[in-house]
């Protein structure tokens, strides 16, 4: 899959908008700071965290290096447990398979538990165009869906909305898709959660079809593991007769025992809890308990191509904990929307260009959305070397988008070469620059004309010093009687 238009402005443009939004920055600053502190506290409780992390990284790396055989093993185990496995090369194929499976049930609505994979393929939109309503049931996802907004965080998709905004969305939109919000709804989070509970309860009890993703797929047992907090995941996995799970092929882990590592790493990295409120494990169908019809759609959608990149493939280890978002100075200031993809933050900046290719300016700009400070690597529970990957992808962007980059550098380098080629010209250029320094004072320089605008579009250029080294040398030498 390549050259996909993500339908969003590229990162530099979107980020410029986002950093001007004071409310957004306030919401994000509070949220990321809170999660960061909680995470640090519960990670600090485990004196073997680094060993768990090394194991997590190694299990994932091992699985990826044998992915074909683990996928086949997973398929056999699911089939033996009474489920059906489908394979999808890309988003369109996955959407077609799910739509067909829902159609076969004769239903026109489905409840959904939040899933990155289904967001990635735009499943809700595909189902809507086939006349099927897919209701998001995670509270934050519901807020985003009702508002026809986009999620801005992997774990807390409505992190950019405060309570009064949420109250307005509920009052305005709930009636349009079922049980309306109470007329006297306040912005108290308890009341807001209660309104969501009432709105969705009716859907859970009525729905005959549920759609989920999975956090882990165990090759040895065919088990799917869904980690969540609210109980909406349990509702979807338990109440309807038909369950369809869309699972990226990188979600496979070899054995049941491997979960002992990931069930320690994930909740602590993600929500900063020792364990999340609910984890469900489901292996095929169980007579008299839960769905009687179970389908898994294994999704490639660019993953096998990313797998071929020796350095880039480590991004496929990601367990979607979102710890890297919460420590990223760039994410904290721009929010998730600026990344223009369902995978925001540092991991999005390395995953999105690999899944979608770097042909479009949107994806090509993402590896530059970082300060390379390395905080993302420090917190990653599976030790993905995100800074190394960002640099690698910047190189790839430059290589694959040669024409674009060449035009830019040729102009800039020719100008630089001309200036540096002659000491007189260099001296004059520096005098102009230091004059600029005096003129701009301490305010810094905003936007420079093209081609230097390629630099100042995304960052402030430092104000040149009021005096260049050459000028200083001349001044101090003249004042020195020995001429030294």
């Amino acid at each position, binding site marked *: 899959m390549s050259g996909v238009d993500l339908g969003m402005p590229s990162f530099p443009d979107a980020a410029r908008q986002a950093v001007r939004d004071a409310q957004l920055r306030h*919401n994000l600053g*509070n*949220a990321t700071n*809170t999660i960061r502190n909680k995470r640090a506290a519960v990670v600090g409780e485990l004196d*073997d965290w680094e*060993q768990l992390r*090394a*194991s997590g990284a*190694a*299990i994932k*790396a*091992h699985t990826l*290096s044998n992915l*074909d055989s683990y*996928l086949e093993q997973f398929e056999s185990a699911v089939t033996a447990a009474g489920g059906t496995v*489908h*394979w999808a*090369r890309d988003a369109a*194929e996955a959407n077609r398979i799910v739509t067909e499976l829902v159609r076969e049930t004769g239903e026109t609505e489905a409840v959904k538990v939040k899933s990155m994979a289904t967001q990635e393929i735009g499943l809700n939109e595909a189902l809507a165009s086939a006349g099927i309503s897919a209701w998001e*049931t995670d*509270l*934050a996802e519901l807020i985003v869906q009702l508002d026809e907004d986009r999620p801005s965080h992997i774990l*807390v998709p*409505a992190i950019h909305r405060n309570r009064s905004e949420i109250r307005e969305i509920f009052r305005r939109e709930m009636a349009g898709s079922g049980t309306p919000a109470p007329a006297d709804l306040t912005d108290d*989070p*308890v009341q807001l*959660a209660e309104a*969501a*509970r009432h709105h*969705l309860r009716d859907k859970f*009890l009525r729905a005959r079809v549920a759609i989920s993703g999975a956090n882990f797929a*165990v090759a040895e047992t065919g*088990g799917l593991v869904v980690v969540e*907090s*609210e*109980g*909406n995941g*349990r509702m979807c996995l*338990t109440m309807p007769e038909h369950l369809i799970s869309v699972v990226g092929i990188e979600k496979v882990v070899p054995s*049941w*025992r491997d979960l*002992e590592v990931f*069930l320690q790493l994930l909740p602590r990295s993600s929500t900063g809890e*020792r*364990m*999340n*409120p*609910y*984890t*469900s*494990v489901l*292996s095929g169908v*169980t007579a*008299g*308990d*839960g769905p009687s019809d179970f389908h898994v759609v*294994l999704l490639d959608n660019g993953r*096998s191509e990313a*797998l*071929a990149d020796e350095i880039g493939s480590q991004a496929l280890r990601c367990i979607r904990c979102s710890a890297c978002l919460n420590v990223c100075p760039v994410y904290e200031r721009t929010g998730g929307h600026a990344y223009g993809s369902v995978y925001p933050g540092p991991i999005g900046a390395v995953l999105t260009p690999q899944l979608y290719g770097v042909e479009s300016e949107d994806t090509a700009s993402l590896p530059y959305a970082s300060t390379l400070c390395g905080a993302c690597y420090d917190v990653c529970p599976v030790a993905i070397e995100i800074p190394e990957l960002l640099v690698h992808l910047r190189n790839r962007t430059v290589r694959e988008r040669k024409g674009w980059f060449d035009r830019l550098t040729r102009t800039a380098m020719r100008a630089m070469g001309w200036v540096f080629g002659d000491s007189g010209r260099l001296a004059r250029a520096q005098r102009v620059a230091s004059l600029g320094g005096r003129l701009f004072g301490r305010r810094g320089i905003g936007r420079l004309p093209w081609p230097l605008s390629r630099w100042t579009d995304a960052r402030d250029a430092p104000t040149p010093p009021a005096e260049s080294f050459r000028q200083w040398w001349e001044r101090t030498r003249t004042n020195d009687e020995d001429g030294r």
Partner: protein
Amino acid sequence: MNRASRDGRRAVLDSVRAALAGGERTSAESIPREYRRQRPVESPAELFRERVADYRAEVRAADSAGAPEAVLRALEHAAAGRVVLPEGLPATWAEPLAERYETFDDRPPLPTATLEGVDAVVTTCTVAIASTGTIVLDHGPGQGRRALTLLPDTHVCLVPASRIVDDVPAALAALDPGRPMTFVSGPSATSDIELERVEGVHGPRDLHVVVVDDA
């Protein structure tokens, strides 16, 4: 399998194999496992009680004889009236409840509408994890099918102290991976609104845990 899905399967696997061609395939034996398989915990039952309480669950301790009374107190606290009892719940726990409450058996399975009108469920668990404060149900005897611990607002769980293990590795080793499983750590909760924790979104609002000293 129809033709389209056969094609999809072959294409995905071929593409994965092409990506892996020439690369090194590591063996599962080479995975380092130097983390703790066991944690030194002086009293798992005590740590478990402490960690469950951190989730704002109600925790009670009782000896075998006092367990039925502790369950009654938990149900009173939750102001429950109608209680569902899963198949296989020991009679010593079930009988005192039947005297005091309107109880429902789930055999044959209760219709969803009936279950929705029930206030509380009383179950036991397969294993419990001290360091995380988690109870694990594999929905065997005394635990009920999954809907029983999902729809009623109050869940009272009797945890025999002998089933409390130190940490996650010991818990997974004690479970049968083929069974459906629910790991429960406190009542259902959301932090989606300004990261303020709110209990009882879609699952039970109250979790009461009774640790039964069965030594």
